[in-house]
């Protein structure tokens, strides 16, 4: 506020004292918040920074089984180099990027289109039925959905039954090395499971549009498609941008639950993503804690950096400084 350095100095001290007085006056609120703070410190921040267990620093030391973290030796970036030299890491990386790219291409626009289509349904009962059915699968776990998928897609399942009846040959959808077949299975299943839920946010934005805009446009002779193009779309565009940023930031999150429940020895080469890879090295493959910590940290840092970058780019590109946060 003030230009004088003396005043500024005093105001810092003053502000500190004010903050303490303010905190003391509102100590009930702080006390109420204390359990939540403890939870976050224990379950989110202790895993990151903890002098006893090592936290993310584990990745930079050589782990010794059943020995305290303080006795481990510093090895710098050795485990990151090890990670980058592993062929199966690059396989998982390639699968993750390819799948995420396809998901952005298919699963991202589908809910938008679905919301636009649902918005055109004027029979409110029909609209409710559609929405009820579309949204329901979101609330089921992937374990359950994979259970249903396995029955449909197995060799004696209904899909192969239809295929054989039409003169085709039964195909093992669940255990094959074909990238196309596996990716189609993954994308179609998660599209059907999630599209209704993802459409809700767009639908609620559309519901907030002033209806007189549509009436005015109709009087001016705007067609249905033009109304969609000039009224509906601009109003959902900010939401689309925010969700796109989040989707780009989550490009390394390869839908762990879905893939983990479908992966097996035969399709691993084409569907194993980074998350599943990290899990495999953490609990199934080896007990090298440092290596697992390094692969996890690599993923966390890259995702975080991507999210921040995507946010900055959007802020630059949009004229009114629109961004997710």
């Amino acid at each position: 506020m003030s230009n004088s350095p003396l005043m500024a100095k005093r105001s810092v001290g003053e502000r500190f004292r004010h903050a303490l007085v303010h905190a003391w006056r509102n100590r009930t609120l702080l006390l109420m918040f204390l359990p939540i703070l403890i939870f976050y410190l224990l379950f989110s921040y202790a895993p990151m920074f903890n002098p006893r267990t090592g936290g993310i620093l584990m990745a930079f030391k050589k782990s010794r089984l059943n020995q305290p973290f303080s006795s481990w030796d510093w090895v710098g970036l050795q485990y990151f180099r090890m990670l980058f030299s592993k062929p199966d890491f690059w396989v998982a990386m390639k699968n993750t990027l390819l799948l995420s790219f396809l998901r952005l291409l298919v699963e991202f626009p589908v809910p938008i289109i679905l919301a636009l289509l649902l918005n055109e349904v004027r029979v409110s009962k029909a609209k409710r039925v559609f929405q009820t059915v579309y949204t329901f699968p979101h609330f089921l776990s992937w374990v359950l959905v994979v259970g249903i998928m396995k029955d449909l897609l197995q060799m004696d399942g209904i899909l192969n039954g239809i295929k054989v009846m039409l003169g085709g040959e039964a195909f093992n959808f669940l255990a094959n090395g074909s990238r196309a077949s596996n990716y189609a299975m993954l994308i179609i299943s998660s599209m059907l499971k999630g599209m209704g839920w993802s459409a809700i946010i767009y639908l609620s934005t559309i519901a907030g549009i002033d209806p007189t805009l549509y009436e005015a446009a109709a009087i001016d002779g705007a067609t249905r498609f033009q109304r969609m193009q000039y009224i509906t779309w601009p109003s959902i565009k900010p939401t689309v941008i925010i969700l796109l940023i989040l989707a780009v930031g989550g490009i390394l999150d390869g839908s762990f639950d879905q893939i983990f429940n479908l992966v097996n020895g035969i399709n691993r080469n084409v569907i194993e993503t980074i998350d599943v890879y990290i899990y495999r090295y953490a609990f199934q493959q080896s007990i090298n804690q440092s290596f697992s910590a390094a692969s996890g940290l690599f993923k966390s840092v890259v995702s975080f950096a991507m999210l921040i970058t995507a946010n900055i780019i959007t802020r630059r590109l949009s004229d009114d400084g629109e961004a997710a946060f």
Partner: protein
Amino acid sequence: MSVFTAKSSLKIQRSWGEKLADIIIYTVLILLLVAILLPFYNMLLISFAKYEDIVQTKLYLYPKSLDFSNYRRAFEAENFANSFGLSVFVTITGTALGLLMQSTAAYCLSRPHMPFRRFFFYLILFTMFFGAGLIPWYTVMLALGFKDSIWVMIIPQAVNAYNIILLRNYFRSIPGELIESAKIDGAGELRTMFQIVLPVSLPILATVALFIAVGRWNEWYSAMIFIQDPKKIPLQLFLRRMIVDATSDLGNDMKNAMRDANIKIHGRSLQMAAVTITTVPILLVYPFLQRYFTTGIMIGAVKA
């Protein structure tokens, strides 16, 4: 006259276009509806089927008989009923604890005079975008004593950044006068929260409660990592062992053949009966869920 005919023909033309658009829209929407419903139909169909019917009928598309024994067998399976009860317990306890913690967090963060409000908010927000990773988290959880404890499915999940933000945004939309008047009456923070803020926030509380409940019912991941005792596994993990582990490739032909022979006899129907049983509780709460989430999310998600 000519103007009149021109106008009416235009109208006919447009309504034809409208009709065509309607046909396309409804066709797409109905196809998607069928694509979602068919797998569930298949699930029910197989769960009520007799083994002979599935084997003898080439394409089993409609029920030939209704056999409830698969459901009985599912409940008789070792530890199934146990897992079911455990999941009910985890869902109820987890929802109660989660709702209390998350609404308290949101209330504090929604108060303008909360000390260090921005700092705490960013502390919570950061966890949505950055995690320590599996192994550092695992070692801390072991150190906290969560090995083989059912509380691993309840306590660490009692806070959730997404829900807290949703609740906070809703609480912030409550008119300030309402809260100030309580202040003048001499109400403390706890009383303001429980007697003023929470009672006017029922839609968002219901939404978040149901989010938490569904999440707890669907829990399997932390149980898979930390729980070894088969008497302490939740229903979803039981289901995973029954379906995923039972049909995944064991990498050994002999083992595969033995396992296949074992589960072929009643495997499919039993699996689908178990899947149906696990779906039913979600189906039961879903109507309540749906009533609230559209409005709840609309107000809660205005700005993160």
